[in-house]
């Protein structure tokens, strides 16, 4: 025990020193948990990209396995002596040969393990990785190149490169011109279907006509006799005129289109075929020989001969592929680019949607509404909306946005109002609007004011809310509007009436509105009274004061709200599953085909991708590291978006630094 100096009074020790430690402990616990979580995610995530050595494992029963070690763990079941033996989880690849990629091997069963230098790992377009020894290449012209011949490596690499090239070219053609071709073809097809739908009586004949057309196009040119017979029948139908003539026109357009694009289609197909024309014969470690199209092997490496630099390059290359490529094989291979992009677009759209709503609501609540019991109740209600389970928002989004607004955009109201009563309501609305505007502008008529300011404000806002609701209702019930996409609806193909990135963003915007409202209100309340009074004293109106003084001064607080909202929205999965996220869709919501923004499209999302990989995947073992990698990317994406907002906020803070108030 230390001796206290003379005259030391215990009561002089500052009170509450203990609590400093308590706070520090609280913070430390928080930091440790966060770091732990990040560590688990990163450590597991990078595994996907880091090359592992491949061992030749000989077992007691004489069998040999070539595999890399994924996990070294205690066995689940105790041995007889009550001991837990250790076992390896091995990645053997060659799913096409073994039907599975992983094996558990008791470590007691292993006789020897060594690293064969010349074993090769090949990443394939289908069925995952292969671990093998090459035998020979069988080229398209029948020549073979044996594995031990000096030009094997060069030839093999050339085939891989050529295939990659062909794939890129084919992809370019498919995405570009052929994409346009399919769109046009689809349009013609839709028109044909519409023609049939609209004329149910002639449907049979129209179908017959279509069938004839298909038959004729399929006939080769030397079957002239049959062709002319069919042509005659076709002509007879065509001569009936009207819709049949229309059908013929459509068919003719289709034929011309096909003719125009035939060379491209052929070219694309040829490119794809070229990938398959060379074959690699290889031997697995257990001696079985297999063949695989050489072009479908994406890359090969010798895992036991990689230097440290090779490994780093390998890591970077694979990480980049993960970022930039589309998923393959039920999402368990390839990259996650569409999911990254989808998450990004959705979060941005959400932010754009949530800002005006949240900020305007908060301005009214804080600046205009008289601070009575009702306002307080509204405020509490808004704050509590933040606690509603997100799936509830999903259900609401599905009902309101997708089935309500979406199907209205597609096909107008299900059951529109009669024209007469609709017009009557329109008159009511017009009167309401005129009354509201006159009342709101009362200041400007040079008459005696007959309502107190706050009562007038409440009346105006109540009236405008009623007018707004009525306006919405009238627009919705309009008997003159039959939807922008009614044609496609007729074919049971909803456009906006099904989940999409727009509806998902709006749903999330709704969900995060409370966050923005609360943050904005705080920020508005923090603007000092002095500057507001100064602004009013300068002859500014209330709105000018809000717009020119209060809003800039509280902008950084508003952005804090947005940051919180983005963080919450970007990581949300449950509601998205109802309003537009799906497992796989290569088309992005933004691309180079007009009209560039395709907000009705369904999209991929990192959060959902994690769920899909981890719990819906046919091979969840293989997907497990991908789950971590995807999680890691989701976190990184949220951080990047937040950093963007934080940078803007700091810029604003510097601009409106308010140290002296």
């Amino acid at each position, binding site marked *: 025990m230390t001796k206290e100096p003379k005259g030391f009074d215990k009561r002089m020790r500052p009170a509450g020193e203990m609590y400093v430690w308590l706070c520090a402990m609280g913070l430390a616990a928080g930091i440790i948990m966060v770091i732990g979580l990040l560590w688990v995610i990163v450590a597991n995530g990078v595994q996907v990209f880091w090359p592992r050595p491949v061992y030749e494992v000989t077992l007691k029963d004489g069998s040999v396995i070539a595999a890399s070690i994924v996990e070294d763990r205690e066995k689940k079941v105790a041995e007889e002596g009550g001991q837990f033996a250790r076992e390896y989880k091995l990645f053997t690849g060659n799913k096409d040969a073994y039907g599975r990629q992983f094996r558990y091997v008791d470590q007691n069963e292993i006789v020897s393990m060594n690293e064969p230098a010349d074993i090769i790992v090949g990443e394939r377009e289908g069925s995952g990785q292969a671990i093998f020894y090459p035998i020979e290449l069988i080229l398209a012209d029948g020549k073979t190149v044996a594995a031990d011949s000096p030009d094997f490596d060069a030839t093999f690499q050339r085939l891989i490169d050529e295939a990659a090239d062909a794939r890129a070219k084919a992809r370019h053609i498919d995405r570009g011109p052929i994409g346009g071709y399919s769109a046009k073809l689809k349009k013609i097809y839709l028109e044909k279907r519409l023609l049939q739908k609209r004329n149910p009586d002639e449907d049979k004949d129209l179908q017959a006509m279509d069938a004839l057309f298909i038959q004729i196009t399929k006939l080769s040119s030397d079957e002239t006799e049959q062709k002319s017979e069919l042509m005659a029948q076709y002509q007879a139908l065509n001569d009936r005129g009207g819709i049949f003539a229309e059908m013929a026109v459509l068919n003719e357009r289709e034929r011309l289109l096909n003719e125009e694009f035939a060379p491209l289609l052929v070219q694309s197909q040829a490119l794809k075929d070229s990938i398959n024309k060379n074959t690699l014969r290889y031997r697995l470690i257990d001696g079985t020989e297999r063949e695989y199209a050489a072009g479908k092997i994406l890359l090969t490496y010798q895992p036991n001969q990689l230097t440290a630099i090779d490994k780093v390059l390998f890591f970077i290359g694979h990480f980049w592929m993960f970022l930039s490529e589309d998923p393959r094989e039920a999402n368990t291979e390839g990259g996650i680019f569409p999911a990254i992009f989808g998450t990004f677009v959705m979060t941005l759209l959400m932010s754009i949607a949530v800002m005006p709503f949240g900020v305007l609501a908060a301005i009214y609540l804080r600046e205009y509404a008289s601070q009575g019991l009702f306002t307080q109740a509204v405020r509490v209600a808004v704050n509590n909306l933040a606690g509603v389970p997100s799936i509830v928002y999903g259900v609401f989004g599905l009902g309101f946005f997708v089935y309500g607004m979406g199907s209205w955009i597609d096909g107008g109201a299900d059951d529109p109002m009669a024209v007469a009563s609709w017009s009557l309501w329109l008159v009511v609305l017009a009167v309401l609007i005129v009354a509201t505007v006159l009342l709101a502008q009362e200041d400007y008529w040079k008459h*005696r004011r007959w309502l107190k300011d706050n009562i007038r404000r409440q009346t105006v806002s109540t009236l405008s809310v009623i007018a707004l609701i009525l306006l919405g209702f009238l627009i919705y019930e309009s008997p003159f509007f039959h939807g922008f996409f009614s044609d496609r609806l007729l074919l049971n193909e909803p456009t906006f009436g099904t989940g999409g990135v727009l509806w998902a963003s709006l749903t999330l915007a709704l969900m995060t509105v409370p966050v923005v409202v609360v943050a904005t209100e705080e920020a508005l309340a923090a603007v000092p009274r002095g500057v507001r009074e100064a602004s*009013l004293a300068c002859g*500014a109106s209330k709105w000018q004061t809000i717009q020119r003084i209060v809003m800039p001064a509280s902008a950084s607080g508003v952005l804090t709200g947005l940051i919180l909202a983005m963080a919450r929205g970007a990581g949300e999965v449950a509601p998205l599953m109802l309003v537009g996220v799906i497992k796989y869709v290569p088309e992005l919501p933004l691309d180079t085909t007009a009209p560039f923004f395709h907000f009705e499209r369904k999209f991929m999302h990192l959060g959902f991708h994690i769920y899909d990989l981890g719990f819906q995947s046919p091979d969840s073992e293989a997907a497990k590291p991908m789950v971590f990698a995807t999680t890691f990317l989701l976190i990184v994406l949220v951080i990047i978006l937040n950093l963007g907002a934080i940078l803007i906020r700091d810029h604003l803070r510097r*601009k409106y630094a*308010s140290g002296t108030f």
Partner: protein
Amino acid sequence: MTTAAPSESPAQTISSPDEQYIQVKDFSFWYGSSQVIFDQTFDMPKQKVTAFIGPSGCGKSTLLRCFNRMNDLIDGIHHTGDVQVGGESIFDPMLEVISLRKRVGMVFQKYNPFPKSIYENIVYSLRVAGRSKKSELDEVVERSLRSSALWDEVKDRLQDSALGLSGGQMQRLCIARAIANQPEILLMDEPCSALDPVATGKIEELIHSLKRQFTIVIVTHNMQQAARVSDRTAFFYLGKLIEYDETQKIFMNPEKSQTEDYVSGRFG
């Protein structure tokens, strides 16, 4: 003991009625149910400095803030009687508050520049009035800064943030801002209470030079200041106007003993 009776009102001594720029008539004012101004009647002359003095809580700021209807922001206020500026009632329902505030500038006790550049602070009242011609704004900035004796100190940093100025400079900036749009009246609520003697001296000089253009009403707790800058002084106590007269008279030879006690520091 009320001085508000018209016969006693010192305002009566001033001749021409259009010289009486601000006229307070039987004015009473309530925050909710508590009355803070009791039946005051007096007039303030044009292009003169009028000082309001009196112990804390006697309603000086409240009265001052009535002149540009700043109290409108507070819920539950009401008044009886009238205040006229230039012959027009400021409570006339047909009068727009905004146009009143353009005529009546105000400088607050605590300097409160906007978090904008010096330039933008000064042109604010013009911008909200929809005037944005560059040459006009430049001219206003220079004129206002010169009249508030700040021009030489800030002319090279007009685009810098106003928050980088010293306290005294900020208060002078606020004065420049208040006079930028050429108001007729300038209300100052303890403009020097947060400043050191040097800055206070500058502002007092400023008030002297400004009264050629503006009618100034200043609230102050500093008797010397009131004596130095004002032409007329009103002494309030508990919401009542006790005495109102030429400053010299109030300080040298007041009629009421309360006034004498207060100005000589024997009050309370």
